[in-house]
């Protein structure tokens, strides 16, 4: 069974929690005791209908303020697929959570309130989906009940969205539009009579149709970061030396000629193992142990790549960065840079530009990059890293920045 990871985003009050609650409810993912608790909680709030948003608004602070303040993970499945939703808050202060939640997603769901149409937040959410190169965006035009299920209104919103999206949409990124009402369950898991003019399928069917394999990481250059060296040192496995890791991208096969980075040593793959199974190939995202024909020096943080597919060695990095910390980023600052499982010290050489996510205007050489701001920066690294551009190979083109003293994750970067 495959897994589809979805990121949801929307502004405060456009009914995102209700939509997710509705998906869970209609796919029978809620047990009876949870439903009873939901009925009781809805009654306490004086409502005469099931407040499905209560299913996902988890933390005490959220219940008090009535908003979602962190990334929540929600699960449901259909007979064909398991879905993981990273539900991220809509409030603009929490852009960092949205980037976080969306970083693993293959589909981005963006909610638009049919009464308000495309608002400031809508574009920000789309911008982030494009920056992360999420291959599919589904725009859910919600609360269609409040505009009388008007086709005209739907088409108008679709046009508005397409107009602004064109500025940042990347080639190959698909956008679909689905009119829905989360509150009344219209067009969520099945088509409803209320919108007979709509010729497409329901939201769930749109998700079911999405072919995750089309844009798989397996088609990119082969990259294998070595996480851990397995050396049992037992009698049975006296000379065993296996390199454990998860294929970041591409496919490795037994017999492939490989290069070890950064040393540049060459060897051939003698075996690929997954526990007690021997494999001929290891595909992207698989956790395996690779052994080499010759005795070469490999340790954690090294990367195995196929000969002829070597990435560029970088000592200076130009990247787009989203800053995630309350303390702003300033030029000259020293940080730790973690690229995959590898890390190095890094120094900010320059803040080159700040991007206004609303207008797409760029201001040059900003003095700082504040929380939730996105900009282009240049970094110098203490030891070279072997990365691809994020556009070419996202699995080997992103990094995080870590504060040397607090150890907090303070930024995320995408290689140019």
């Amino acid at each position: 069974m495959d897994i589809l990871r979805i990121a949801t985003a929307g502004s405060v009050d456009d009914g995102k929690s209700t939509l997710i609650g509705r998906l869970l409810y209609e796919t029978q993912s809620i047990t009876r005791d949870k439903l009873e608790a939901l009925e009781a909680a809805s009654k306490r709030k004086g409502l005469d209908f099931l407040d499905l948003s209560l299913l996902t608004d988890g933390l005490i602070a959220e219940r008090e303020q009535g908003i979602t303040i962190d990334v929540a993970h929600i699960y449901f499945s259909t007979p064909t697929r398991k879905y993981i939703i990273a539900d991220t808050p809509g409030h603009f202060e929490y852009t960092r959570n949205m980037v976080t939640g969306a970083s693993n997603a293959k589909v981005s769901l963006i909610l638009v309130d049919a009464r308000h149409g495309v608002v400031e937040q809508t574009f920000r959410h789309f911008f982030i989906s494009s920056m992360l190169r999420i291959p599919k965006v589904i725009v859910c035009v919600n609360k269609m009940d409040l505009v009388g299920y008007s086709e005209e209104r739907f088409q108008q919103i679709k046009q508005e969205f397409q107009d602004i999206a064109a500025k940042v949409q990347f080639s190959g990124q698909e956008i679909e539009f689905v009119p829905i009402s989360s509150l009344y369950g219209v067009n969520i898991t099945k088509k409803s009579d209320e919108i007979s003019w709509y010729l497409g399928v329901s939201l769930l069917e749109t998700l079911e149709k999405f072919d995750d394999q089309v844009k798989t990481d397996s088609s990119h250059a082969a990259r294998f970061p070595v996480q851990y060296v397995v050396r049992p040192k037992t009698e049975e496995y006296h000379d065993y030396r296996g390199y454990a890791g998860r294929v970041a991208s591409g496919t490795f096969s037994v017999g492939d000629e490989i290069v070890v980075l950064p040393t540049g040593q060459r060897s051939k793959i003698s075996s690929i193992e997954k526990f007690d199974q021997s494999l001929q190939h290891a595909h992207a995202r698989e956790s395996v142990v690779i052994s080499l024909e010759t005795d070469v020096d490999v340790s954690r943080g090294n990367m195995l790549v196929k000969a002829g597919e070597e990435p560029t060695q970088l000592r200076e990095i130009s990247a787009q960065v989203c800053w995630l910390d309350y303390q702003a980023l300033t030029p000259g600052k020293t940080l730790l840079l973690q690229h995959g499982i590898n890390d190095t010290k890094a120094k900010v050489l320059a803040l080159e530009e700040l991007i206004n996510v609303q207008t797409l205007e760029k201001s040059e050489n900003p003095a700082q990059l504040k929380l939730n701001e996105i900009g282009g920066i240049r970094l110098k690294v203490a030891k070279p890293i072997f990365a691809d551009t994020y556009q070419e190979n996202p699995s080997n083109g992103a990094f995080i920045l870590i504060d040397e003293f607090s150890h907090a994750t303070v930024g995320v970067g995408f290689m140019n």
Partner: protein
Amino acid sequence: MSSFGDKSLIPASALENPIFPRELEDEAIYIMREVAAQFERPAILFSGGKDSITLVRLAQKAFYPGKIPFPLVHVDTGHNFPETIAYRDWLVKEVGAELIVRYVQDSINQGKVQEETGKYASRNALQTVTLLDAIEEFKFDACIGGARRDEEKARAKERIFSVRDDFGQWDAKRQRPELFDMLNGRISVGENVRVFPISNWTELDVWNYIKEEGIPLPSIYFSHQRPVFERDGMLWADSEFINKDTDEIPYEATVRFRTVGDMTCTAAVLSEATELDDIIGEILSAEISERGARMDDKRSEAAMEKRKQQGYF
């Protein structure tokens, strides 16, 4: 008993039509290896329940043919099901892992915690103190737990690497963002990390994995006869550890347990399920959620979040 990962335990249905999403196993193994590489003294928190048994299987696979490079730590409330303890002792031998046991009774004797009284008395909350003491004693910098995000609303927001302060506390607002699959386990002195490799698994995923891997389980997960009594609409195993009211009269019933906490906080369900396929069938038609049978979560709507803030895993 069969071996851990006994192929003869895998039902034909699972061999013909495996449905467990293997991507979840790849992800969990990746996390296990990051723990071994990023921390000096990690440990697996082992309760004897199906989730922590799954963790042991994943750790075994992650480092094969090497041994699991960290110990299993069991905080024993003294109120465990004997079947769980027997299974635990068998399992550590079977996989060749090191076992460390620390007892809530010792924390009580040392006057660090006080035994609860009354009919709902449980040592479940007391475990936290014994656990934090064990973390200090062995200087564990990472504790791997079997918590899953689908279990409970507060857990839905938990990170895979969850940093705790000196007091083991969880602060929902200060959580580190986790981007892509990059895990940042750097901590300051006194801090430690709780690691949740099966965060993205649901209860059904765990059961399907156990089935497809041929993992034997403690017998209390399967239907059996035992004396039970009713309280608050749930069935409780009759034991010397639960203070019964005079009108709570035990009788024999055919039951099984869906989770295996200690006897004072884990309710039984009536069940005829003797095979994994029966259990999975029950879950698919489930009327009650997994944690719905846990008294510790029912104390208030925000019970789990409050316990997590205090250092519960």
